């Protein structure tokens, strides 16, 4: 019954929205890359569910998509069973998803498994109808079968994936450094092909290298305001120079770092270092840095000894160390950790996080509860969004926020339990409960697109 009902709704929506969605997907406005979506127009909202494999919440069993209209997404009486009726994206583990700003196109790179690194593009036709378009492109030779990638906010034209080979200790009998080779690859998402690639070694200053520090992973590139530099987040590692093994002792972390390269040539890599944050700047499975209207880039930190910070990178592509935003201070917690976040506008962002005192989830004794906060980057304040929290709320793998005008759409559900789409007005902070998300034990939702 429910199945037939949702299908019917889907078809009606397809007919009604066909003209609108096709109009939106054409990129006729080149000068302002990301035209503000018109919130009065309808659009597709695609919900992504992550299937467990062997342990609840791990999301390793694949990813399922299902699209509904914006109106249905806002309707708390509308219920969707993504796992029963959705489309299984071809990816052994959780797919790495991105969408066009207007929601009419989904982009995916399969993560792990036999087709890991395969980029595919789908036209969203509603329900479980995702129409492949443009063919397949595989970036695994450049970025591996478990690639880290995001799209740039350049009118949905470009995707960028980055990787670092396993850092190796230098040859010889004395310790000098640990280094890997970095690779950046850009994907022309319009023509569905690889447009550029580059590989280079990433030496740190000699003193830092001698202490064992190295860049262990790159992630979450972002394009600067001038459109001439990419700023790439880093995840740092450390070798114990006394043994040549991974350092298991406690050590002092270096200031947060990012790699800056020319765009679109990808050349001239340069490392910048913050004196405010000391965490990694790699994010996890989605964006971690955003360009705001003021021309600055805001970048979150993870595993920061002082709790997560949001750092500012100015138009000179350097850390602005006069800007100090500590999430710990803003929320009055300790050990905050930004898992996923999204900048909206006017200095307002929504941040998914956990912290030291958060409850442990019931499905894993290593995982703590996640929360959502509204952050004002200008006022340097943060406030927890009022949601029906439960210890099994888990946003670590969260990938997708839809920003539509003033509104932000998120999926909120504990692992293995039903939840809802919530529509949050970023200006007023008002929270409205939207469509009901029917879940299956062990599975969870990783976003809307």
């Amino acid at each position, binding site marked *: 019954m429910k199945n037939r009902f949702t299908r019917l709704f889907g078809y009606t929506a397809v007919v009604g929205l066909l003209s609108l969605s096709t109009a939106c997907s054409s990129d006729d406005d080149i000068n302002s890359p990301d035209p503000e979506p018109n919130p009065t127009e309808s659009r597709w909202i695609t919900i992504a569910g992550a299937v*467990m494999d062997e342990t609840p919440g791990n999301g390793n*069993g694949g990813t399922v998509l299902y699209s509904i209209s914006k109106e249905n997404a806002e309707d708390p009486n509308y219920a969707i069973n993504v796992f029963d009726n959705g489309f299984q994206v071809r990816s052994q583990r959780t797919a790495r998803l991105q969408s066009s700003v207007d929601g009419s196109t989904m982009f995916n790179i399969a993560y792990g498994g036999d087709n890991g690194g395969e980029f595919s593009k789908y036209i969203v036709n509603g329900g*479980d109808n995702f129409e492949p378009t443009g063919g397949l492109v595989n970036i695994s030779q450049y970025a591996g079968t478990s690639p880290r990638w995001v799209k740039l906010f350049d009118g949905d034209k470009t995707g960028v994936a980055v990787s670092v080979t396993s850092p190796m*200790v230098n040859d010889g009998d004395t*310790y000098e450094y640990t280094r890997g080779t970095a690779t950046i690859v850009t994907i022309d998402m319009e023509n569905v092909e690889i447009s550029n690639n580059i590989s280079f070694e990433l030496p740190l200053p000699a003193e830092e290298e001698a202490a064992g520090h190295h860049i262990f992973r790159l992630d979450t590139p972002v394009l600067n305001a001038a459109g001439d530099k990419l700023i790439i987040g880093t995840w740092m590692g450390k070798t114990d*120079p006394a043994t040549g093994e991974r350092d298991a002792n406690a050590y002092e972390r270096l200031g947060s770092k990012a790699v800056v390269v020319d765009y679109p040539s990808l050349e001239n890599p340069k490392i910048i270092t913050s004196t405010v944050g000391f965490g990694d700047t790699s994010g996890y499975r989605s964006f971690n840095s955003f360009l705001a209207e003021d021309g600055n880039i805001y970048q979150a930190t993870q595993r920061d000894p002082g709790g997560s910070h949001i750092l500012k990178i100015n138009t000179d592509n350097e850390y602005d160390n006069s800007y100090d935003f500590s999430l710990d201070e803003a929320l009055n917690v300790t050990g905050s950790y930004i898992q996923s976040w999204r900048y909206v506008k006017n200095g307002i962002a929504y941040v998914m996080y956990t912290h030291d005192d958060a409850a442990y989830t019931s499905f*894993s004794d290593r995982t703590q509860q996640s929360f959502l906060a509204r952050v004002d980057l200008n006022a340097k304040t943060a406030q927890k969004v009022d949601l029906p929290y439960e210890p099994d709320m888990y946003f670590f793998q969260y990938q997708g926020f839809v920003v539509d005008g003033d509104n932000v759409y998120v999926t909120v559900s504990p692992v293995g339990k039903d939840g809802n789409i919530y529509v949050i007005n970023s200006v007023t902070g008002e929270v409205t409960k939207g469509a009901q998300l029917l879940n299956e034990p062990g599975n969870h939702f990783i976003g809307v697109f």
Partner: protein
Amino acid sequence: MKSASSYIWSVLFCFFSVVVFGQTANNSGEKAGQAISATYTVSGYLKDHNGYSSANVEVVLSNTSEEFKATSNYSGYYEISGVPSGSYIIELRKENHVEYGEVIINGEDVVQNFQIKNKGDYELSEVLLNVESVKSEIEKKGFAVNVIETEEAAVRNIQTNELLNRSVGVKIRQGGGLGSSVDYNLNGMSGNSIQIFIDGIPLSSYGSSFDLSSISPSMIERIDVYKGVVPAELAFDALGGAINVILRDDFRTQINASVSYGSFNTFQSNFNAVYQAENSGFFVKASGFYNHSDNDYEVWGRNVYNILPNGKYDYVKVKRFNDEYSSRGGILEAGFKKVNWADKFSVGYTASDSYNEIQHGAYMTIPYKGRFMEAEAGIVNLTYEKSDLFIKGLDFNFHGLYNERKRTINDTVTWTYNWSGELSRDRKGDPIPSQRGAQQGAPTIANIYRDIYSFRGGLTYSFNNNHKIGLHHVLYNISREQNDELWNGIRKNFIETRELEKNISSFSYESRWFNDKLKANVFGKYYQQKTRQMDPGVETIDGEEVRVEEYFSNNFDYTGYGMALSYLVNSGIAILGSAEKALRLPTDNEIFGDVGENVAENSGLEPEQSNNYNLGFKIGPYKIGEHSVSLYASGFLRDTRGMIVREPQMTLNDAQQTAPFVNLRGTESKGFDAELNYIFKDNLNLLVNLSKFNTRMSTKYDSNGKVLFNYNVQIPSEPFFTANASARYSFKNVFQKESLLNIYYNYAFVDSFYNVWVVNKRSGLENSMVPEQHIRDVGLSYVFPKKNLIVSFDANNIFNKQAYDNFAVQKPGRAFYLKLNYSINKF
């Protein structure tokens, strides 16, 4: 290291040749005496159904290569002499009545009496064979066991693994051609939960350079496949079952050599020589093998493409280019047989090494170039067996071995290659550095050195024919060290050492009741495992950095028990049931990790446990006229907890590029096996078997007490329905008198399965399906009249269909092999 092994090898081969030629010279001197001791006599009395002596019955003893005939005299007595050891079909023929039995000759003369069941006066009627063959005897003990006789395989190009694959309830997962790693699946359980034994010695103690392909089927007497419940005498931790390969033990002086050549430059050779002194019981056995294959078979399809500089796919049909395999080895054994102080006493030395290129990882989408594995092992062993030790009925056996071995994974090529074997290039035409570092992971030349000693002892006492108790113990100790030649010198000063020791004791009580109608075997097993780790590190003591060693150790002990029962409803129908609370201790690689394979250490790993149940029946063989039929069917249940699997990476752990093994899922396998055998005269032999099982997730609840979506759902990447049909037809006296021509046909079917969880048929799943597989092989063998030369020809996968392993890795297509088998046993 390489040169050392070559040295050992050449020495062995020299010695070996000396022994063999020395022997022949020796033999020619006492030709007459030797000939008698090399063969045996089968004799006995034949009676009809009324118990009267039956004269003029034609008695034919045959196997695929030889045939002997005699006719019973007026007393019903028959005698056939000059028969070598082995298992034979005996055919009793009088006018229109024919009856069959089996006779095993195992190094001594056999007396075998028969009562012919021709009730109505020589009318053709249903007759039951009441002669228990070894196969039938073992299969009717109550264990879920199938016994594979290798006689046919011995003369053909059939790998021992292939033979197992065709056997009921056994599925072999081999990701490629000769030498590629093999995973055995018995009734839905696989991996390390299946133990392979050679004459009761775990194959794992011989090292990876010595595997079942190192043993020529001609050296194998038979293979016992125990599913789920494993008898106590194989006192080892075999959770899901055991495959015990019984080598031929017919100690008569002989030389046997076989050589085969075929597709993909595959060359396989075996050499086996035995010298048995007539009076002293002294014997020397020497055997050697050399196998090589380029494995350059063609691959194509969804997973075979070159990635163009712009990332698009170019689907190609290409030959594998980094998959060469060679292995060689020799075994030398000397001792005494059938002397008053021992049934068998021997010392032996085995040396082997192998070179194995690795074409790809678990999936075939990314081809590797230059990754390879080398292994070498040297083993000294000692065997002592004595029945009726001190008192009658007390049997003792002891087997000890010491093994030194080394395994190296070499992966240092830092560029990316495509399936055409060329460097992958980017849009600018530059080669693309491998983002993994090397082909599979970071560049590595990873060595693991293992020293293993293992002692097994068994003591059994038979009170009379009906009650037997047994006590068995195994001690297995392995110390190992691993390093990487690419490590910085500093790291090399901090090499960890690891030690693992297993002790497994078992007790069994075997009994027969109600005129042998009920056979029962109950047993208990006690398992102990100790691990000891030494981690060197640096500590600052009095301001100076010094190297320190830290020690950790860990102990476990567990008990298990089980039983096997069989009840003979009548002489043709047996009901079989068995159950075991079984256990598998983690292996050294699972606990200590493997740098070359990116496996991290987990010293807290616990054993896997499983409750295994089997229930089945065996009917026949029934004979109607010249038709003989037998049927076997069995159902099974395996309830496994704490399965040892690679940890799925979740969140923060992604920071580590290696993953350990963890005790994770629970699964339940349920299913059945069935096998039907039909024989017409001794010309046609038809065997059909099928195996269907479901391995389902048995972890039921999430932390909220709700039933998980994949509870009771078939786990991904496991075929669950397989069937096999084979036919053999024999022609006698073709081309030449006294010759034998056999034609074979085999058809194997594997149903389609998915590589992802399938709870409902949502869209998009079709991309993760491994399609149905239908593979047909044909072959023929020709035995020359003198019986010492056999030529065989095999054509595998004749329609060149795609055959896959569990992760859609393609196996060889159409292939042809020619094999010559030559033996001398009359000197």
